[in-house]
């Protein structure tokens, strides 16, 4: 990224007034980055911005509440979670400094794995924006970016960081490949019985590690989630379809109207359970009923956090 | 160790004593008389009480092995399991897994003076050792008890205390943070924080000191004992941690490579200093 040097310079200048700036750094191999917490000048050089910067830095904000001055390097989708948190009064705008850029999409590990086997076997990977070239053993393959990128990138209409204090480089002109998520569309073609069977099979696989919950920028209950409460006891420790499904439904209901579809829950899931289907479904319902897109305008009040006698978008049956 | 260390023995509650507003003492006997007859333990060891459908929790066996009519547990109401235990009545069933953990070094302490310093529910583990020593009175030197609680109503084991005060082979001092109008009329009734009263009593520092209570009280009591010149390897305390299995498997009660459930709950102060700082 050409603008990386400029971004680093912006951070360098802002750092004296900030407790920390959260971004990304190189991970244990070429396909992984990990979050970077910049606290000193030396840390700035570790910053990387590329198609493997999958983590949403806003997920760490709940740990930094309470007057800490926080800088964040955010993709467009990530920035929506910050706006939603601001809308819910869970953050103060004056505590945040957001560094934005134009994002051209991120690569999805699950799709790479489905295509090439274990990621750890991949020797090299190159992305020119349109195509990705992958080398595994003696095999070299070039695949269109759209076949390997995260699902959210295919429908993304916010490739540029929203509401940022700083912006580097050129704005992304990336247009969504489609309006609707293909996986959800396919899923909705199934019969009710087939859909139920699908979820039973997926929920059987859940190990209740709560990575989906903990990776979610909107899950602010932190250590006091009702899933862990023994009194009252909502969930059994039994890891079975019924209890796993119960947890996932509680999770999605708590996110309805709040979820910004950053996809961190699904990405974090070690079992690759497609829980974004549930999120997308509910976000679609909220769009249909309230004409509302979570985390796109800090001035909005989320529809499930207010009461209006007459909802302008709902036609009352008299 | 039993064939199945996580399987409780069934027992029945014989008696319930309401000690304070949030502490009750339960006296239980195993349903199987053979289990009762063969049961042995040492002062300081703990047991897990089960209320089936709610779960298990760890408590010290605070009766003395010298009196085996029943096993006694004192339970402070703090959470899910303890609240349910408080609802139990005489004749109700409980599961008991005991004895677990280590014990006070009663052999090593023979012939020595012993000062007991207990705070609140922390009196429970001291009671077992104190009764044991009184039942083997000739084996031990001067015995002093300093027992404190928030208010006079928060002092447990009133019956025992009355008996100990009558005896001339044990010195008893009671202290409360918040005295009422009645308090202080007797010479053994003091007011003030335990560590301060301890310094006032100024027990002979050549013997053993045994202390248990809330973490903050233990911390300042240890400092006071140090000041009084007690040796680190003659100061004993019992630790509490969240436990599940009680037999060193489930992992949560470790401090460094020591497990409170098997290497404790009794620790010497000198041993505590060797452990990583993670209380």
């Amino acid at each position, binding site marked *: 990224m050409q603008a990386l040097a400029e971004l680093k310079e912006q951070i360098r200048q802002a750092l004296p007034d900030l407790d920390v700036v959260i971004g990304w750094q190189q991970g*244990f*191999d070429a396909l*992984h*980055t*990990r*979050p970077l*917490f910049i606290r000193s000048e030396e840390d700035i050089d570790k910053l990387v911005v590329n198609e493997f910067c999958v*983590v949403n830095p806003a*997920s760490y904000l709940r740990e930094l509440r309470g007057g800490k001055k926080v800088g964040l390097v955010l993709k467009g989708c990530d920035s929506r979670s910050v706006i939603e948190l601001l809308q819910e009064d869970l953050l103060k705008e004056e505590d945040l400094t957001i560094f934005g850029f134009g994002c051209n999409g991120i690569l999805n590990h699950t799709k790479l794995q*489905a295509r090439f086997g*274990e*990621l*750890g*076997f991949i020797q090299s990977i190159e992305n020119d924006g349109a195509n990705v070239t992958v080398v595994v053993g003696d095999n070299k393959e070039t695949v269109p970016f759209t076949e390997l990128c995260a699902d959210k990138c295919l429908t993304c209409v916010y490739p540029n960081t929203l509401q940022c204090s700083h912006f580097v480089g050129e704005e992304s002109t990336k247009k969504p490949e489609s309006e609707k998520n293909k996986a959800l569309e396919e899923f909705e073609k199934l019969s009710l019985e087939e859909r139920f069977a699908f979820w039973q099979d997926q929920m059987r*696989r859940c*190990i*209740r*590690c*709560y*990575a989906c919950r*903990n*990776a979610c920028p909107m899950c602010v209950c932190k*250590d006091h989630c009702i899933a862990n409460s023994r009194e009252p006891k909502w969930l*059994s*420790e*039994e*890891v079975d379809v019924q209890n796993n499904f119960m947890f996932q439904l509680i999770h999605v209901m708590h996110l309805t109207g709040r979820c910004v579809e950053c996809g961190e829950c699904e990405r*974090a899931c*070690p*079992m690759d359970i497609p829980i974004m289907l549930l999120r997308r479904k509910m976000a679609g319902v909220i769009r249909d009923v309230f004409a509302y897109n979570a985390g796109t305008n800090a001035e909005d009040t989320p529809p499930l956090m207010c009461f209006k006698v007459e909802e302008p978008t709902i036609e009352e049956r008299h | *160790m039993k064939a*199945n*260390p*996580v*399987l*409780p023995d*069934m027992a029945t509650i014989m008696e319930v004593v309401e000690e304070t507003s949030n502490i009750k003492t339960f006296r239980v006997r195993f349903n199987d008389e053979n289990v009762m007859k063969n049961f042995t333990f040492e002062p300081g060891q703990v047991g897990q009480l089960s209320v*089936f*459908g*709610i*779960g*298990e*929790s760890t408590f010290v066996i605070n009766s003395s092995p010298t009196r085996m009519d029943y096993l006694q547990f004192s339970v402070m109401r703090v959470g899910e399991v303890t609240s349910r235990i408080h609802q139990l009545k005489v004749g109700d069933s409980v*599961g008991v897994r005991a004895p677990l953990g280590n014990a006070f070094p009663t052999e090593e302490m023979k012939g020595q003076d012993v000062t007991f310093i207990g705070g609140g529910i922390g009196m429970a583990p001291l009671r077992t050792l104190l009764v044991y020593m009184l039942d083997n009175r000739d084996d031990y030197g001067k015995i002093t008890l300093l027992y404190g609680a928030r208010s006079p109503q928060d002092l447990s084991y009133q019956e025992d205390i009355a008996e100990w005060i009558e005896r001339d082979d044990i010195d008893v001092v009671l202290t409360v943070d918040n005295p009422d109008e009645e308090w202080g009329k007797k010479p053994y009734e003091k007011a003030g924080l335990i560590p301060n009263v301890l310094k006032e009593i100024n027990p002979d520092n050549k013997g053993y000191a045994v202390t248990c209570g809330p*973490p903050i009280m233990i911390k300042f009591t240890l400092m006071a004992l140090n000041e009084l010149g007690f040796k680190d390897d003659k100061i004993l305390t019992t630790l*509490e*941690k*969240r436990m*599940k*299995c009680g037999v060193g*498997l*489930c*992992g*949560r009660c*470790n*401090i460094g*490579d020591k497990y409170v459930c098997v290497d404790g709950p009794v620790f010497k102060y000198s041993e505590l200093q060797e452990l*990583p*700082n*993670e209380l």
Partner: protein
Amino acid sequence: MACKFISNEDITLWLEALAKDHVVFVPVDDCGSVTFRPLAEGRKPVLDRVPVRSPKEAVFPQNETLLLYKYEKDLEDPEHSTVRIKETLPKERAVVFGTRPCGARGMTVFDRVFDNERIRDPYYATRRENTLFITLACNKVESTCFCHEVGSGPADTAGSDVLLTPVQGGYTAEAVTERGGQMLEASVFADGGNKCAEAEEVKKATREMLGEAHDYSDAPEKLLAVFDDDEFWEEQAAGCISCGACTYLCPTCYCFNITDEATGTTGKRLRTWDTCMSFQYTLEGSGHNPRSTKAKRLKNRVNHKFSYYPDTYEKNIACCGCGRCIKSCPASVDIRAIVKAAQARGAKKESK
């Protein structure tokens, strides 16, 4: 060690024969992830990928019923009820097929804890005795592999009953235990012949791919040297999201919770995998929590594997180097890097 040969085609025959009197766990494609599931119609073993879940679940399932209980009302005195309990020891005989050497080695970490001179956990021990491990040596390595650094290797036999090594047309099979030897008496096995030399080459080549091994032997004291270095641990844990993915997928993590799960007047006492990364794990009734921050919790996990366990069990590291915790971590927290950083920081502290 006698070396035999089994062809790719005969593997299926062998597994089907074993399935007659065992539950045979095989790695299969389970909605895109590779997990161990009982052999059944339509489930084909996937042997060229590494199962995301570890084989420990065959011996230490995520949920294990410890006992059943039942309240019975006293008809004479309806105020009172008595409780009956019933021990529920496992009875199944099982085979785990196609685990990697790291996963099988994980069981040896369990063995020292669950079945020793002091204690024998009958649930674990019964399953362990009734479960055979047929392990597959590796011929490729991943970026997250570090078995060679924790005393293991891509052809390690620790914890296994049989070791298979991929060669042209099939696998060589070596018996590790007596029980493994009996399994190799099946008619599907031929004499190894020159395949055995080929297998040795595979083992050697895979070991070479891993390169030189970092030395973790002084980690116990170095980790303790940085125990109180909060800044260090906060930095290492900054990315951690306190989920349980690392511990649940780990072949050596054995911490558990015990809960009662009631339905009316009956119910069961359940043992469930627990995770030291969760806030609730050490939360006491009083509200006090000795490991209240994620930095303290991560410190405990790293210390348990690389310091406390080796100190208790003759220097054995409680990590099998499979890399699952690294690979499945949503934030790419890397335990190798943390221990190395602690060794370096500890050495610096000592030299001061």
